[in-house]
């Protein structure tokens, strides 16, 4: 007999039971994310399910143990698309490239209908449009000038609040953003570090390298979406 098999299945039943604690069947479903050995339950419901979320947390000890997790969290996700926001310095290069690369990846894996992807500038945008190099790079990688209509915009408190996942390019951009839903792109992809700004690089292929780095992170993230 494999105790791990039994505990894993039992832990799932306990949490599912807790999510219908009020016997009202108000939870529509769950989406799970794993980040740094932290399992996040995004619980889909239209109504207030504070009691169910609290009960599920209480009943998650076995799940934590069976899957060797550091933390299990339960967050309400009202029935809307999961909003992912990319943030870089000026919203003219890294974050718009990340936005189109993730959008195309979601289209490829047939999950575009489940997510809303956007991008914003942490600092004041340096231009109103995407940088010509970023446009060329996206065109080179995706075969289309998908940043032609991009309009750079500054991050606002409302945008941060309404986003479910905020992925920043550099550590300094975490400052002032909600800690429970903000990661660097590399952290969220399971690594560490930052995506350097290609504008500050003297390398000729800095934009392509930057886009490839972003693309590699997105490929890893897409496996968990």
């Amino acid at each position, binding site marked *: 007999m494999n105790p791990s098999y*039994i505990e894993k*299945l039992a832990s799932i039943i306990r949490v599912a039971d807790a999510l219908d604690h009020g016997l009202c069947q108000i939870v529509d479903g769950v989406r799970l994310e794993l980040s740094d050995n932290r399992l996040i339950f995004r619980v889909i419901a239209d109504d207030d399910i504070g009691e169910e979320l609290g009960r599920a947390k209480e009943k998650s000890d076995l799940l934590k143990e069976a899957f060797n997790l550091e933390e299990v969290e339960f967050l309400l996700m009202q029935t809307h698309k999961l909003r992912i926001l990319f943030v870089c310095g000026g919203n003219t290069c890294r974050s718009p490239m990340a936005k189109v690369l993730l959008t195309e990846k979601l289209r490829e894996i047939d999950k575009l209908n489940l997510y809303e992807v956007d991008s914003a500038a942490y600092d004041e945008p340096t231009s109103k449009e995407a940088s010509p190099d970023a446009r060329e790079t996206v065109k080179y990688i995706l075969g289309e000038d998908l940043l032609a209509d991009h309009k750079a915009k500054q991050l606002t408190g409302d945008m941060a609040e309404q986003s479910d996942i905020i992925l920043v390019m550099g550590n300094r951009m975490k400052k002032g953003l909600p800690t429970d839903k903000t990661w660097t792109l590399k952290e969220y992809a399971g690594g560490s570090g930052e995506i350097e700004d290609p504008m500050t690089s003297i390398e000729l292929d800095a934009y392509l390298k930057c886009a490839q780095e972003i693309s590699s992170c997105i490929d890893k993230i897409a496996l968990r979406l």
Partner: protein
Amino acid sequence: MELSQCKALEQIAIERNYGRGKEHSYQVKRLALGIYDELNRLGILDIRGGEKVIEASALLHDIGVPEESRKLRHNKVAFDILTTEIPKRLQFEPLSGQELSAILYCVL
């Protein structure tokens, strides 16, 4: 576990109104299978063929509740029901020891 075994086990739940009603048990089944799929997608489940155990456990998880639990612990009532009923219902298609243990652990 075979589908027929799962149906035979559900019969035990039906006869006892699933403990707290069919709606709740079916909701637990739906959510548990959803969590199972999500854990699988994330690559951390490392279990194959657990769906039927999840399904049977979800449907049976409240048997013995609430009327009988006023006098006896739910666990004791459920244990008695399962250990007497499962061998009768599955006489010709027994569960594996692991599956039976998993269901009992889930339910109790």
